């Protein structure tokens, strides 16, 4: 879907982005992760031509973006900014309707789409007439997301979208973000410096440093097969929680005993979720077991806390020997 080839950006003598290449598949969520100044935001802004590259090319659907009108290109790419970037002189409704207005949609179509989106994003109808300044940080960020999604662009670029939010609001929005069906249909590139966020939201993570890509892979690959010490050290501090978040219940399937769920007991969990989500159930719910449901082969297994930990340990052992 998106191909970045030998992309470089120089600001004077500083190489902000230095000859990087990567690909993002359709409906994939790629995270550009790194510390400030590693070139991740510059990379992102070159994709919708807010910044023009010094060298290299970017293809979206095999079309070189430099051959397109920048305005037309941008209207087909959703963009979410760190500090929401909402227009303070527009109401929420007007803010969301910016792109439809540029695309000259008729009024009814715009209204329908806007009310559809605010429902999905848990905003109320009253808030449509409010100005961004009258909303909370979390609400503003949702409006920012609605604005980016309104014209249903296939590609979404997000520049530290949750960076300005407090921890509680952020984890709430993360959960909503993962659940939002609109986003499942999008190819997303998101920039963040927050390792936890990267592991929670990303299908793939592209770890960058000094304008170069250090490692590009799935969260598990970064954790269990770090390319070098930089990657290892970058993840070291939060390693345990990252492991629990990146390993899915599905990954543990072979080590879990095929025990059918007892009748009427335990919570049901999808096997797509991480081990972390499974552990949370033991912490907050009564009952000794959880029922993990494997949707694809329609199996389900009943698991206790110790079994889960043991399966996780075995999985890690195997990863280490691979």
């Amino acid at each position, binding site marked *: 879907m998106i191909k970045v080839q030998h992309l470089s950006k120089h600001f004077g003598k500083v190489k902000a982005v230095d000859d990087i290449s990567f690909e993002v598949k359709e409906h994939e969520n790629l995270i550009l992760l790194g510390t400030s100044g590693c070139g991740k935001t510059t990379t992102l802004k070159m994709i919708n031509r807010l910044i023009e590259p010094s060298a290299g090319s970017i293809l979206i659907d095999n079309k070189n973006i430099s051959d397109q009108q920048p305005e037309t290109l*941008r*209207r087909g790419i959703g*963009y979410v900014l760190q*500090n929401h970037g909402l*227009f303070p002189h527009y109401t929420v409704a007007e803010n969301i309707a910016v*792109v439809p207005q*540029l695309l000259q949609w008729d009024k009814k179509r715009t209204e329908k789409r806007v009310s559809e989106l605010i429902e999905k994003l848990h905003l109320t109808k009253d808030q449509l007439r409010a100005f961004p300044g009258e909303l909370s940080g979390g609400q503003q960020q949702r409006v920012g997301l609605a*604005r980016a999604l309104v014209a249903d662009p296939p590609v979404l670029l997000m520049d530290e979208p949750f960076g300005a939010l407090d921890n509680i609001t952020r984890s709430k929005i993360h959960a909503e973000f993962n659940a939002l069906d609109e986003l499942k249909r999008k190819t997303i590139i998101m920039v963040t410096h927050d390792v936890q966020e990267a592991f929670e939201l990303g299908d793939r993570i592209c770890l960058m440093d000094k304008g170069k890509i250090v490692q590009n892979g799935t969260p598990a690959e970064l954790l269990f097969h770090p390319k070098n010490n930089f990657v290892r050290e970058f993840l070291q501090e939060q390693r345990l929680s990252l492991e629990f978040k990146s390993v899915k219940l599905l990954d543990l399937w072979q080590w879990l005993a095929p025990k059918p769920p007892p009748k009427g007991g335990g919570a049901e969990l999808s096997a797509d979720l991480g081990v972390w989500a499974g552990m949370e159930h033991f912490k907050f719910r009564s009952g000794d077991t959880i029922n993990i449901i494997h949707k694809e082969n329609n199996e389900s297994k009943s698991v206790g806390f110790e079994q889960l930990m043991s399966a996780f340990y075995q999985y890690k052992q195997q990863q280490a020997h691979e």
Partner: protein
Amino acid sequence: MNEQQQTLWDFMRQQSGKLLEQTVQHIGLTFISLFIAVLIGLPLGIFISRRKKFSGAVLGVAGILQTIPSIALLGFMIPLLGIGPKPAIAALLLYALLPIIRNTFTGITGVDATVKEAAVAMGMSKWQVLTKVELPLAMPVIFAGIRTATVINVGVATLASYIAAGGLGEFIFGGISLNNTNMILAGAIPAALLAILFDFLLSRLQKLNIKKLKTATATLPLLLLVLSSFYLLPSAYGTKLKAGFTPEFMGRRDGNLGLQSKYGLKISTVVISDAIMYKAAFEKQLDVISGYSTDGRLKAYDLVVLKDDKNIFPPYYAAPIVQENSLKKFAGLEKILNLLAGKINDSTMTALNYKTDYLHQSPEKVAKDFLVAQNLWRPAQTGGEGVVRIGSKIFGEQYILANIYSMLIKGYSHYDAATKTGLGGTKICFDALTNDQIDFYPEYTGTGLLAILQSPAKVVDSLMVSPQATYNYVQDAFEKKYNIKWLKPIGFNNAYALMMRRGQAEKLKIKTISNLKRYLESR
């Protein structure tokens, strides 16, 4: 004396027609220039917010324009645009430019970078980013600039009366020259009220809710246009010749009022400053002007004086007028000042004025050359016994006299002399004298009689015949009323006179004011 007892209200009511006309002109001048300034300043401000490297130069030039004294700026405009509303509007426009450009620039560059980036990233074109995001968000700051410009313009527009563009300045400067407080206030109060009113209205517009901003933005150009159109009112009745009179001349019985009542002269008239009147006549912007008979520019611009065949201009013999207290304080001062008595006649004075006004010699040089030629010059002695403060009005002749007196005082006594030149008009000079800010200044008998004493018409008529009678009358009245002494006359008579270009006067065979009247009335 009745004029002083007349209240301000009476004056305003009596002059209501003229007051209304001037107010309308004033509003028109202010807003037509403001309108053009917005038309120029807004795009320029937008331009420099896009090309920042030009911002220093543009703001610098606008800033320099702002620092030029308004009178000087009006002066610069005359060779380019003549007299009347055009140069006044141009000058006001230049003053209004800086706040508008600067606030547009500041407003646009002050828009949150994230918001601008979002606008671009949504796919807005440059024009859309400007009109949908940057301008609306910068609007309060831009409004503040327009507001500043409006208040500046209301103030500076009073000076437009110097170059025949009308406005409330006619009353203000006329009042200052005529020592008529009511007249000054009749111009100054409406001008101040206009400034307050427009500032208030624009502040309301500026503070409007962001929702209503769109309406406000649409209203402003319309409002500016309507107010500007005030100026497109028909000017006074047209006649074959055009006259330019000073504000002082306009309101004096021995000026325009006398011309109307005694001669029945009807001529289309503009009000104009003395400083540029002669040049305007020379450049054929004006045909008839109210000058002074000893003015050097008479010679420089080849103008002729029309004979006052009905004697409406009283004699204006110049003499120093001194505070009695100062005469006591500085022993021998009277004698020194009287050294000049009878030494300068009309033609000598015209020649001296010609040297400063036309040959651009400094008043000091002209004064010294004169004293040397008269064998009166002595090198300055050591001072230290006190400082004599000499005042002078704001024209060349008075500068020369002040310098001559200064040299005489330094040469003939151990006093120092300080010249306080350029005290606006008669009122400012005379107030300075009565309030002990200066010790003496050269005054004219006619001015004393009419402008300061405000003598009734009967007295004036009875004195008109004899210069000596006028001198005696003012000397006596000043002594009693103000404790101020008229010293001996210097000799020349700087009376008011109507003048025309020599060529035109000869061609039309106009030699007297009655000739002029007959010509204007002929078909």
